[in-house]
């Protein structure tokens, strides 16, 4: 029975909402949108399945019946990742040291510089607890998914190549190409 709302199997959800400093929203948006050109920095976190940064200008549309406007825009960061949160945040603060000043450095109350243990504490202080988290493959780590996808390609290629092989060839090729 899963009693931790941030967990589904071994997978975990992280949700962080941090207030953006006045007048920093446009520069932050531009920076985040340009990140992809050089490859996502989240790729350097091998436990991350999915991640996103979203600038939340407001929670509600202007014509909402009961508008509840944000005083300042917020930066939403979420990740679906493997294993424990504590070590993941360590890795995040370490691996994103180059990008963090341009991202969380534009958020109010962030440590100066926004790196290491002070950044980790800042992110923890702004974490929102998940209500319900669901994963299609909750026990599979990113490494397991990558290996399984590669293996599937190998098996498909082998199954095609194996047509017409005699039994001895087939067995030898299987052991060599797919592994015994």
């Amino acid at each position, binding site marked *: *029975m899963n009693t931790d709302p941030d967990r589904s199997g071994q997978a975990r959800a992280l949700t962080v909402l941090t207030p953006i400093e006045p007048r920093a929203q446009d520069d932050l948006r531009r920076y985040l949108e340009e990140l992809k050109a050089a490859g996502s920095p989240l790729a350097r976190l091998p436990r991350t399945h999915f991640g996103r940064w979203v600038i939340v200008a407001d929670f509600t549309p202007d014509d909402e019946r009961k508008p509840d406007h944000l005083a300042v825009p917020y930066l939403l960061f979420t990740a679906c990742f493997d294993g424990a949160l504590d070590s993941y945040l360590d890795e995040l603060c370490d691996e994103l040291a180059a990008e963090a000043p341009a991202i969380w450095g534009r958020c109010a109350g962030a440590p100066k510089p926004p790196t290491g243990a002070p950044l980790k504490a800042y992110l923890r202080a702004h974490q929102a607890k998940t209500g319900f988290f669901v994963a299609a493959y909750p026990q*599979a780590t990113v490494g397991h*998914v990558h290996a399984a996808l590669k293996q599937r390609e190998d098996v498909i290629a082998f199954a095609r190549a194996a047509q017409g092989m005699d039994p001895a060839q087939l067995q030898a090729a299987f052991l060599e190409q797919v*592994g*015994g």
Partner: protein
Amino acid sequence: MAIAEGPSAGPLTATGTDPRNVDGQAICITVFSTVKWWGRLWLPLVFVYARLVPSAHGTLARLSFIHFARWTLVRRLPEQRLRHPHLFFESNFNGGWEEYIDAFSHILTRGMTLFWGSSYGFPTPLPTGRFKDYIKRHEIVASHFYSAYPDATTTIVLSALELDAKLGEFRARTRGMDPEAFARAWRDFVTDVQGCL
């Protein structure tokens, strides 16, 4: 009017969403909605029910295009007192935006009402037109979205993981077999895992 966002990165993709919400086959959706006073009490109960009752997972599992999804009730922010709680929903999925919302509405009709029934302005999940309008008005485009395996759909990931388990059994079962028996076992194996290839 939808929630204010930055300038568009371009026209909607073939997936029916902004290109900033897309990484390869993967699409993200980010939605905030304002929750009525009783949702502050109601939604935590829904979350507990969804976590502890296996059938809730089973229904979501029928949506074979979702990698990960979450619902979070934002009750407070360290820097601002909120008049209302807000429901945050995110999903990481593949396929098309329209098809995603359609499937959600048709398969999770009751669940959608449980999750969003306490949000202001939430229409019934069916017919889907009004619900799509509601989601569009409350959706926020991502500035950066990342998938570790952007070319793989949920179905392909699940197939690869199933194949991995079956291949492990096959290797163990055929170790030391003579070539003739191995060839027969291989043919049976390929037939068995056809759906994973």
